């Protein structure tokens, strides 16, 4: 009764704004949420963070009412939202996105991690393959770091001129094999539908890369693939990977594009996702069935405002400016202003 009473005393119920974002955005978006709610006291951001594929599935497969979708891989938006119509309509879930940020893939570790004193840019793949080293991987079926880290291993075969790097790391670690077909210029990694580590595996797999952070903090794993922004936010030790492997250099798109990850989903998924190597770009959009599209646009405006830019910068995750993206003609009216910088 007291709960009801206090709710009745509140002058106006707050409008909920549901934001689903990639796990690697937790810290900057948490700061954004506080600043945004301070600026718009009538709005209440309800944020959830998942692996990027999960984020979009909550919209398209679980049919949840979501206002803003922010994915660590912008390519997931056309792949999983442009081509899928909202049930009972001819309207796709989305027909535009803004590429708001980039990142670099790197290795996070702690001073106490095994072989922390000897790991470097030339031997990291060999150190990670040692059976006594616990490596945290995020699940490539659900999370963008998941398939990107596998691309990095495949590309490392070209980079270091050793064609066993991928299998030395992966073989025997999973009950259903992850396979790499390496044709030099074209590397295809096939992920089985069911993916579980073997009993004796030195890999620990979790649903998203941010789920590995607490395991790294607790010393359960020695190394984990994470984005640079996340590593800096948590003040972990960081081993930067060469530009040719970290998926962060816009000039190396051609090189990245040689690696492809295919999910061999036969039963469960409505689409067979294929991920092509490319520079890491985060995408943000408003689903066409968002319950509060105007408030959602306010959030995106705020992200690009000087205050939003500063928050992203403070979290080592700077915005890509000027604003760019895809299908920008379809941007909501109130966001058209963002196109002026182009």
């Amino acid at each position, binding site marked *: 009764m007291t709960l009801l009473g206090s709710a009745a005393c509140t002058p106006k119920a707050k409008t909920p704004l549901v934001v689903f974002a990639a796990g690697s955005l937790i810290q900057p978006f948490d700061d954004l949420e506080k600043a945004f709610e301070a600026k718009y006291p009538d709005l209440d951001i309800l944020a959830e963070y998942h692996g990027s594929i999960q984020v979009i*599935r909550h919209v398209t497969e679980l049919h949840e009412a979501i206002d803003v979708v922010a994915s660590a891989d912008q390519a997931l938006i056309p792949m999983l939202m442009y081509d899928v119509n909202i049930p009972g309509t001819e309207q796709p879930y989305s027909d535009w996105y803004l590429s708001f940020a980039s990142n670099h893939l790197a290795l996070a570790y702690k001073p106490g991690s095994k072989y922390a004193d000897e790991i470097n840019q030339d031997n990291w793949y060999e150190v990670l393959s040692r059976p006594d080293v616990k490596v945290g991987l995020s699940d490539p079926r659900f999370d963008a770091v998941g398939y990107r880290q596998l691309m990095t291993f495949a590309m490392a075969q070209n980079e270091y001129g050793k064609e066993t790097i991928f299998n030395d790391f992966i073989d025997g670690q999973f009950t259903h094999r992850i396979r790499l077909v390496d044709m030099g210029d074209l590397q295809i990694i096939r992920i089985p539908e069911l993916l579980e580590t073997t009993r004796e595996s030195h890999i*620990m797999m979790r649903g998203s890369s941010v789920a590995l952070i607490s395991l790294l903090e607790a*010393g*359960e794993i020695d190394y984990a693939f994470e984005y640079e922004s996340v590593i800096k936010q948590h003040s972990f030790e960081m081993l930067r990977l060469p530009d040719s492997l970290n998926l962060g250099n816009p000039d190396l798109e051609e090189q990245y594009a040689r690696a492809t990850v295919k999910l061999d989903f036969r*039963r*469960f998924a409505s689409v067979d996702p294929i991920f092509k190597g490319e520079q890491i770009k985060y995408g943000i959009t408003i689903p066409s069935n968002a319950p509060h599209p105007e408030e959602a646009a306010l959030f995106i405006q705020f992200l690009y405002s000087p205050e939003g830019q500063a928050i992203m910068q403070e979290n080592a995750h700077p915005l890509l400016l000027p604003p760019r993206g895809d299908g920008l003609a379809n941007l909501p009216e109130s966001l058209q202003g963002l196109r002026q910088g182009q």
Partner: protein
Amino acid sequence: MKKTHFPVGFVIAASLMILFIILPIIITLLSVSAEQMLRTITDKDVARSIGLTFLAGAISTAMGMLTGLPLAYILARGSFRGKSLLLGIVDLPLIIPHTAAGIALLLVFGRQGMLGQAFAQVGLFFMDRLAGVVVGMMFVSLPLLVNASRDAFASVNVELEQSARVDGANAWQVFWQITLPMAWRGVLSGAVTMWARGISEFGAVVILAYSPKIIPVLIYERFQGFGLSSATPIAAILLVVVLFLFALLRWLASSLEKNS
């Protein structure tokens, strides 16, 4: 037998409660097509996961009985300083959020944890291992066994135990030949409840052992990763199996009681 009359409101309230429990179960079962059901039953990962879940629950219950029954007996019969503190400690796992329990267990049984390091010396690891599943299940479900057994032991007449002692039985014989046989129904019921609570645990287990995947974790993973259509059949199968097992155990207990 004289018929008891209840207030009408009680009957309505009770019916609503039963409906609240039974409706989601029925809807889940009805929402799965025969084809989906068949495909899920023949899914090796589902079968393995169910087996693993029941096994881990059984191991944790067995270990719970080894340590929990002596504790329950001491709590039922002993009177000593700090007993109420002890009773409170036993109940702690019931009020600790299970994710918090998982983190606490991680800090003790993890690679850097006190017991984790000790057990690693003998090659026993907990993270992402069966042992981790067992520990998670045991922590959250142990109070159910201890409390049920304590009540069962307490209901056994103390004079019977005392007269056995007078006749020359030692304390162990008294427990084994007098108290336990008379309290077995309560103990068994506690053990079954502990097992059932164990196999339904998600929060504590998922932090220690995301894999090997027990059924609650598998259902969550399929729900998150592949959607409702792949998670519901597993949930339905689990419901069927558990309902069947519970009916079986109830029947077993009641027929044993008739025989004795």
